[in-house]
């Protein structure tokens, strides 16, 4: 979203930091003009914040709720979510492939037992091994989820009024 060549109004500057699995940090500028609140990305935020003059006196901001800010950020966060999803899918698929192959191996060994004389003992061992693999798979899934559980930190850095246009 591009800024208009001339811009005045109230503003909020946020920093968003996402942790797990990769760290992502970004600044967002929320500007309020006649059409309401609009969000601007980091590059635009930096441009404006460096160039503009601000009123530092206490200003009365047009009301904005947390939910509205969340809605404005949602689109930007979706891009991050897609990145996370890709990484997650890659790791999950590697895990699934591993456990699928492990399952096949155990199944194969079970089938081959028919030709052994110590069938029952061995079968019990393999059944246990299969159970253990299943349990381990669940554990690894849980660990993967923890590794990818995102932590976000949103900070309101600054707010005020732009007192001159671009």
């Amino acid at each position, binding site marked *: 979203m591009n800024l208009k060549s001339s811009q005045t109004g109230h503003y909020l500057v946020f920093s968003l930091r996402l942790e797990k*699995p990769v760290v992502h*940090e970004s600044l967002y500028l929320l500007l309020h003009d006649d059409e309401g609140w609009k969000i601007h990305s980091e590059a635009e935020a930096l441009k404006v*914040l460096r160039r503009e003059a601000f009123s*530092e006196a206490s200003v009365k901001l047009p009301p*904005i709720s947390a939910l509205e800010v969340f809605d404005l950020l949602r689109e930007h966060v979706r891009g991050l*979510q897609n990145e996370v999803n890709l990484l997650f899918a890659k790791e999950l698929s590697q895990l699934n492939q591993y456990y699928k192959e*492990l399952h*096949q191996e155990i199944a194969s060994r079970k089938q081959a037992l028919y030709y052994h004389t110590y069938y029952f003992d061995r079968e019990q061992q393999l059944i246990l091994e299969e159970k253990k693999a*299943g349990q381990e798979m669940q554990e690894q899934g849980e660990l993967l989820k923890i590794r990818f559980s995102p932590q976000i930190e949103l900070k309101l*850095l600054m707010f005020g009024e732009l007192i001159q246009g671009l």
Partner: protein
Amino acid sequence: MSFVITTQETRASNQAEFNLSEHFLENGIMQISSSLRQHFSFLRDHEEVVFQILGKYEVLGSYRKGSAFVLSLELRTLCLSLKLQPGQKIWLKRSTHSHRIFDVSFPYDNATVDAVMRATVRAREIPQLELEPPAILSLGAVTDWMRDWDLTKREIGSSIELNQWLDEYVRQKEQKKQGLIGLEDVSGIDYYPHQVEAVRKAIFDCHGRVLLADEVGLGKTIEAGLIIHEYMRRREVSKILIVTPASLTRQWQSELKLKFDLDFQLALEPKTLEDESRVIVSLDTVKLRRYQGYFAKNTYDLVIVDEAHKLKNRKTLNYQFVNRISSKFLLLLTATPIQNELLELYNLVHLLAPGALGTLQQFRKRHVHPVNRRQPIQPDELKKMIEPHMIRNTRRSTSLNLPPRRVIMQEVVFAQAERQLYEKVESLIHDFYFMLSSERQGMNQLTMMLFQKLMTSSPQALLESVSGILNRSDLGFEIRDSLMQMETFAQEVIMPAKLTVVLELLEQELKGERVLIFTQFRRTQEVIAEALRKNGVLVHLFYGEMSSKQKEVVVNQFRDQVSVLVSTDAGSEGQNLQFARYMINYDLPWNPMKVEQRIGRVHRLGQKHEVFILNLFVKDTIEEHIVHLLQRKIRLFERIVGELEMILGYMGNELADVDSLDRKIMEIVAKYREHKDQLQHIDQLGEEFVKASSQYASSIMAQDKLFEGLD
């Protein structure tokens, strides 16, 4: 009407194409034509065939060799449910893992097949994790945020501050993109380019989950410290767990404090794990049941496992503990990822990235040589597979070779008074050692061991200890009598033989040099210092009870002035004293690890000159045997610092715990009066080290061959 399923193999995709027959759709009998027979030729009569659908379900069939068909009613049901007609095709692909497993594809999209499969066929589901990626802006996150929402609280007060904040923000962000940001704050150490590169690779290429497998002595601990520091600087970690062998916990703690100013707590009880965010715990401790509960319900940002070759066996509790611990980043540190077989490497990589090297059976088949289990079948392919998970620096790749180390054994001869005292101590030990308790109360075997060690350190130290014990009221008459005699003999020694030798050395050969003298005992340290001062030598003392600040001052003074630093073994842990090149071991610890740690203070990266190590030992005493053990059997003085820990890993018996070596030596001393008998039995102990060293050497050769080119 056709009864045969015709096949047409597409060689490129290794798929077999089946034209469905009416016969199959009626009876579930797949007639195997001659062209398809090769796919089934490995099967035995009546052997079970597994058809996998979408990689999620399994249906079974049975192969009849004589009649050349496979009977599978479930597959037939599925085809009918999918409304497949005679003449339509399905595709079979034999699994690479088993000759009797086939992936089946249908001329429909996966969702349709899945829906029909679920609704109509009784199939076994292949275990699979179906997990949704955790949402970034989950309801919980939004709720938390809304709760904290306050438009009156801003982080930055004025536009000037905002500009400063922005400058710093942009600078750091650029730096983070380009490389490491933490190095500028590290002032306590001199790091090397290979270490910086290892940190960079660990963070950017391996995403914090990596096997750090540098050769011994290239500074893996420093690399780990730099990684911790970098992640902390990036605010990516706060909860950190370091798991080390018990013998190294304190060393890690002091090195992290000294070099990175990082405080880590030793987890001596489970509560520490709950209270502290940066903890060091020993491998033996984490296995204890009372610790397990904590790890099961907590997660870490970073876990570091030192001497990770101890996790080589996946059946051990150690391995299972690390496999279950939840951590975003995981560093495994070892110089010997392969000790006995390649599977050990598999196990380590599996901890970092489960499944990255396939299943154990596949790995064994594809990579492990059937006879020599250390040798890979396809080294290039294996190297490619492990490269994303491993960093290895070698002396050759880093061109970091330490200057030579010269070791001098200086024999000292007791004068008559000291000899009498020594004999009295020996006789006390022979008479009473086995009668005393090994418990830690009263006059016990440990006290005897202490006497033996003190005797070769200094008579004054022995005297102090004996006088202290004589104050006890629970001593038997015979022991009291012997101790009183020892006290008298000790008082008669005016100038200990070792001290005379040291004074001569400092006045002649080492005059004007910076000299580091190690002793095990505080009293001996005082005696040496006193004598040196009397002779006009500038002396500094270093011992455990000093505060960190005092220690820092002393080390700085020793660096800045030509002087002598007399240190207890507290100075052998974590301190960098490579600006000195002359070291005297006034007495020798029986534990070779401690001797190695002492050497490591001066003979380490950063040392630019030849190092001289002078070991004093008294003729015809236990020290002579200890020197023999260290020099001839363990070959400690020729080894690179750090190698001994590796070698101990190969010792299967209780000697692997070097603390038990003290007890073994003491038992020999107490049991055999003749020195040649003592020597013979200490020799036998030494053979264990010889065997372990040779195993260590062959594993190093094997892994060097495999990892060649990875550095």
